[in-house]
């Protein structure tokens, strides 16, 4: 689907992140440069410790690089040597431009599906009436409108993950970041969730999905392979269609 002159959504240059563990310095991410365009569906792969989670956290503005630059939609989120957005501005970027989907859903257990989906709008300063309307629309788009008043414990794993996806979509983000979104689901439900991602991607949203399962990665249009903190492989492929 990636038509040639698509504008870059994510531009990462020489991104590096290292941690100090005792006397050793661990290069969690080492000099990674990559461009992801609008409308792409990218799978990030690699064994544990390969740097894919660090890459993900940096893209999600949950962490700052030690060096290198990161531009999201033309905005310099992290620049050379400490220049970049303030912590409050990063919070706003996470809130408006990025939607997170986690392996373990991370729904608030005592709130209804509707309340959970409304949560990002609480931090976006959206009025109450509009919150309900937009949350119901988001739940509709994942096929769970009639479960709006259910609590997470009353929903299956696949339904919970779909509520989480609705929550990620509710502020109309530019980018959906999914961290092992099918890791806690059985094969059939996993396929459903991947199918939902593909449908959302066809509607124009950019998706970056971290996984260590090749069966999941084959549904993406592009695969980035990480090992030892470096990007070792960047492959465009024809995605398989999931149901």
């Amino acid at each position, binding site marked *: 689907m990636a038509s040639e002159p698509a504008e870059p959504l994510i531009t990462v240059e020489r991104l590096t992140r290292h941690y100090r563990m005792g006397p050793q310095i661990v290069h969690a991410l080492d000099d990674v440069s990559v461009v992801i365009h609008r409308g792409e569906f990218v799978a990030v792969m690699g064994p544990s410790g390969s740097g894919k989670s660090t890459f993900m*956290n940096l893209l*999600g503005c*949950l*962490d700052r690089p030690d060096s290198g630059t990161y531009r999201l939609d033309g905005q310099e989120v992290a620049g050379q040597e400490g220049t970049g957005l303030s*912590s*409050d501005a990063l*919070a*706003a970027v*996470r*809130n*408006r431009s990025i939607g*997170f989907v*986690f392996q373990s859903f*991370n729904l*608030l257990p*005592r*709130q209804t599906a509707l309340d959970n989906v409304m*949560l*990002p709008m*609480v*931090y*976006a*300063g959206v009025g109450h009436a509009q919150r309900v309307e937009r949350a119901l629309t988001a739940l509709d788009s994942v096929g769970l409108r009639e479960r709006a008043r259910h609590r997470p414990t009353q929903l299956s794993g696949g339904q919970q993950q779909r509520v989480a996806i609705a*929550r990620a979509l509710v*502020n109309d983000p530019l980018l959906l970041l999914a961290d092992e979104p099918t890791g806690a689901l059985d094969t059939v439900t996993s396929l459903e969730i991947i199918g939902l991602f593909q449908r959302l991607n066809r509607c124009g949203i950019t998706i970056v999905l971290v996984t260590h399962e090749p069966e999941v990665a084959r549904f993406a249009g592009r695969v980035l392979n990480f090992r030892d903190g470096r990007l070792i492989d960047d492959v465009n492929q024809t995605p398989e269609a999931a149901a």
Partner: protein
Amino acid sequence: MTAWDALRAALDSLRANPLRSALTMLGIVIGVAAVIAMVAVGAGARDQVLRQIASLGTNLIMVGQGSIARGGVKLGAGTASSLTEDDALAVLSEIPGVVVTAPSVRWGLQIVAGNQNWGTVLFGITPDYMDARDWSVATGRGLSDEDVAQANKVVVLGQTVVRNLFGGGDPIGEPVRVFSTPLTVVGVLAEKGQNTQGQDQDDVIFVPLSTAKRNIPGMAKSNPRFIHTMVVKMRDGTDMAEAQAQIRDLLRQRHRLVAGQDDDFWMRDLSEVSATRDASSRALSFLLAAVAAVSLLVGGIGIMNIMLVSVTERTREIGLRIAIGARRRDILVQFLIESTTLSLIGAAVGVALGIGTAMGVAALAGWPTLIQTDSVVLAVVVSGIVGVFFGLYPARRAARLNPIEALRHE
């Protein structure tokens, strides 16, 4: 995040662990309830004392004989026989605002009735004295102007004296003796009980001023017009300090005292007594404040403890909230509102419990209690401050969590 969103989140989280929330509030509840109940009991007692003082009359000025000084040796109150009935008349006629002046003499003696005797204090008085000091008669009659004019040999007994001389019997019309003088009992005073110093006010007998002077040996030898004390009753709302100054000037002038010479009389008004009371109730207030501070401190530590537990338990929730766009400030405010809500609900329950306890004490023990609005307001405000103060550390801890680690937290 609006305050309303934060409040909703706070109530939601408190509802999740109702028992734990209730136990956490208990410290604040007990602190607030104790303060309100104790202040109510204290204020009730103080109010009762103030009413007693008012019943003595706050618009009264007592003037008494002063001391005489011979060669620099002051011989104590009452040694100068300078104060006279004429002074009392002069005060009444010349000082503005004076309602009554009641001259009196007093003498400690034995009173005898049949084969019983009792040591008491005799007051030689005029009828005005009973009015000024708020005495009334329970049975029989009080002393009249005629009794005073004719020096009638009549006596009015206090309740304590009646109890000791006549047991339960009716003394009206019975003869009694003081020194060798026979007197007839014409009345019994209504009971007054103890005064603010704990003295029995009913252990007195009243005789006409003239009778006392004429029949008590040694009294009024040097000056037949002398008196020990006079009670000056002022009109309500009189400036008592101003009245005292005027009386002092008048008496100094009448006693021909030159500038620099000490007064040969003493003077005080009962508002000084209530000032002493105020000081002691202030001391009580400090004590209460200390109790309140300690219990609210303990309550606050309880809140801090539970908030720390809550932050740890909800690490993933905090991580999630940060990931979806909460600023550090949003997290801080959310937890601060939660701890403050906890302490304010505790305060509200404490207020109810405190008022209930005060009313219970009033009903069961029969103590007068007065709910003080300022104590309620203060307790609630301090509880709110406690909630913010002790919530601050846990809230900062929550706000400083690293979202990546928080989301990975099990």
